[in-house]
């Protein structure tokens, strides 16, 4: 798209650049503002008197003597033991991603290589499952889990998240495996490999880009989940997102809102790092499904 005729007229260029600038501002400003505000006291973050307090840190200076304060972070991480929630999140996310990918690669590979009708129907069923609101499934789990004493533990939540994740993982990996030429594993089979050996020695070495991309989305699903984790985990085993919701429910006294603000910033930071390093994979993953239709 570099041809001369395609170059935009000046007003159009200005309008389009202006629009992008406005969008970038809308997309980024809430995060910047909250990050900035998390180092202030509540009186500045929610400034009754004058909004400029948030910029100057007037109340922060009066109350703590400095322009920035880590009180919110200290309150959240030390006093409210947010580190426990962070640790639980790490465990849940790690195992959800690992198990999802293991099951998903096997299943996705089979779906991509089977030409039978039932493979199509399985994909359709997976699509319907993908559309189920998670909370409807949770209302199915609760009673049995209470009865069988499965409620509240991390492994239960991990398995549930893996299952909820499967339809999406299958679709995504299925379309990635379709992109790997069939000839590769066919020729291995001609050389005497079984299907599994062909998968093990030929497909696994070349599948990593697709698996990493799918893994990113499994990560996001597990990390961002609120419906499942808030209902299925006991208070001790809570992950970060329900823990933050908990901060809000129990604490509306002075200063404690700042714990939630600090916790929110802490929970957002890993996502920023993720996007920074894997932007290309995320973009390609979002479009992979689309291009396949």
């Amino acid at each position, binding site marked *: *798209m570099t*041809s001369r005729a*395609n170059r*935009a007229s000046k007003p159009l*260029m200005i309008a389009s*650049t202006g629009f*992008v600038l406005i*969008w970038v501002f809308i997309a*980024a400003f*809430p*995060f910047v503002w*909250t990050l900035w505000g998390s180092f202030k006291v509540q009186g500045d*973050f*929610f400034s009754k008197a004058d*909004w400029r307090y*948030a910029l100057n840190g007037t109340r922060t200076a009066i109350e703590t003597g400095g322009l920035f304060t880590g009180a919110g972070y200290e309150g959240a991480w030390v006093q409210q033991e947010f580190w426990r929630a962070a640790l639980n999140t790490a465990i849940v996310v790690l195992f959800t991603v690992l198990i999802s990918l293991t099951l*998903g690669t*096997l*299943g996705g590979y*089979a*779906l991509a290589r089977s030409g039978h009708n039932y493979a199509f129907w*399985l994909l*359709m069923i997976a*699509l*319907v*499952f993908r*559309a*189920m*609101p*998670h*909370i*409807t*499934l949770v*209302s*199915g789990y*609760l*009673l049995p889990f*209470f009865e069988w004493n499965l409620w509240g533990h991390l492994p239960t939540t991990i*398995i549930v998240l*893996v*299952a909820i994740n*499967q339809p999406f993982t299958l679709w995504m990996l299925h379309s990635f495996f379709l992109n790997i030429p069939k000839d590769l594993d066919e020729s291995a089979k001609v050389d005497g490999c079984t*299907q599994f050996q062909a998968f093990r020695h030929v497909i696994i070495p070349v599948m990593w880009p697709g698996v990493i991309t799918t893994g990113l989305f499994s990560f996001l699903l597990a990390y*961002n989940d*609120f*419906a499942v984790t808030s209902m299925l985990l006991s208070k001790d085993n809570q992950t970060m*997102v329900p823990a*933050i*919701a908990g901060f809000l429910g129990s604490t509306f006294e002075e200063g404690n809102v700042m714990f939630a603000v600090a916790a*929110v910033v802490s*929970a*957002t930071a890993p*996502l920023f790092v993720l*996007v920074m390093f894997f*932007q290309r994979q*995320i*973009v390609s993953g*979002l*479009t992979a499904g*689309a291009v396949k239709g």
Partner: protein
Amino acid sequence: MAHRTFFWFILPSLAAMLLFIALPLVSVAVQSLHIEHEQVLKVTKNCGPFGCKEETTVNAEATQMLRDQKPLGRFNGLNTYFDRGHLATAEVAQAWQERSSLGGFLADLYNLPLYKAIGFTLVYTFVVTPLVILLGLVIALGVNRVTPILKGPTIFVSLLPMIVTPLIGSLILFWMIDAQGIIGKSLQYLFDDPELSLKASPALTWMTLIVYGIWHSAPFAFVVFYAGLQTVNSDSLEAAQIDGANRWQQLRYVVIPHLMPLVIFISLIQLMDNFRVFEPIVGFSAQANATSLSFIIFNDLRGDVMRFNSAAATSVLTILGVTILLLPVLIRTWRDFKGKAI
């Protein structure tokens, strides 16, 4: 691939889906047909100096035992579906008979919890989805014109609203629109109304949630459209230019038809995701003015008394809703598949 090999490859994944997606659906259906046991009553004779009186008390111990033994409760048929908390057939019929106008009838309907939730869920789904597609397209067209060096950072920033945890994203905006937060204060200043609060009226709450929904989902549409724009055939664009098409006509007759399959893809995903709108309502504490189907299920399950049957009945109705929503897509896919087979 042989049937047997296929089976072993797909087994773990299929088992996970059957156990934790298909079975829970069955469990939801079964639970919706049951209701908690009634309290066991005990009649005792209380004899005093002025004669004997019969007293009815709740036998807490026996009730608890019964409930522990049969946690599912007693069979209730479809009654839960038709009670006031769900389809409320009796109330709807009454409202219809006593209606003064269609608006009055709808207002009565809106006072029933399930219809209130359906109302918001549908409005949210069908307002957010088209606006997301539109905004995503405009952003993609804009970013496509940005100097190559700045494209990476622009895309990075654009991805943030989508990648952030929905509950956290809504909390961040919630704090900003607070009457003492920066957006809330600015709006008060703009409209010259120091009492203005976005949380106060239903209309403003709905608008806030919809704006959040667009902010959250527009990046998805943007990324998909942006990738689609990279594959527009430059020959057809040039041909259109030679034929004298202006910029708008090129967009309308070359670019948009090229992106049409992507529009369908995005609408499908967005309809599914917006229909389950839930976290923003928690994040914005909007339940007084706006509830969604997912939210009322959540609400039934989190109180001190968990109303499993009520949550289950709403879940079944929600699943029916999702199926109706997906039906056109499924039928189309099925036709395509049939077409291919012939």
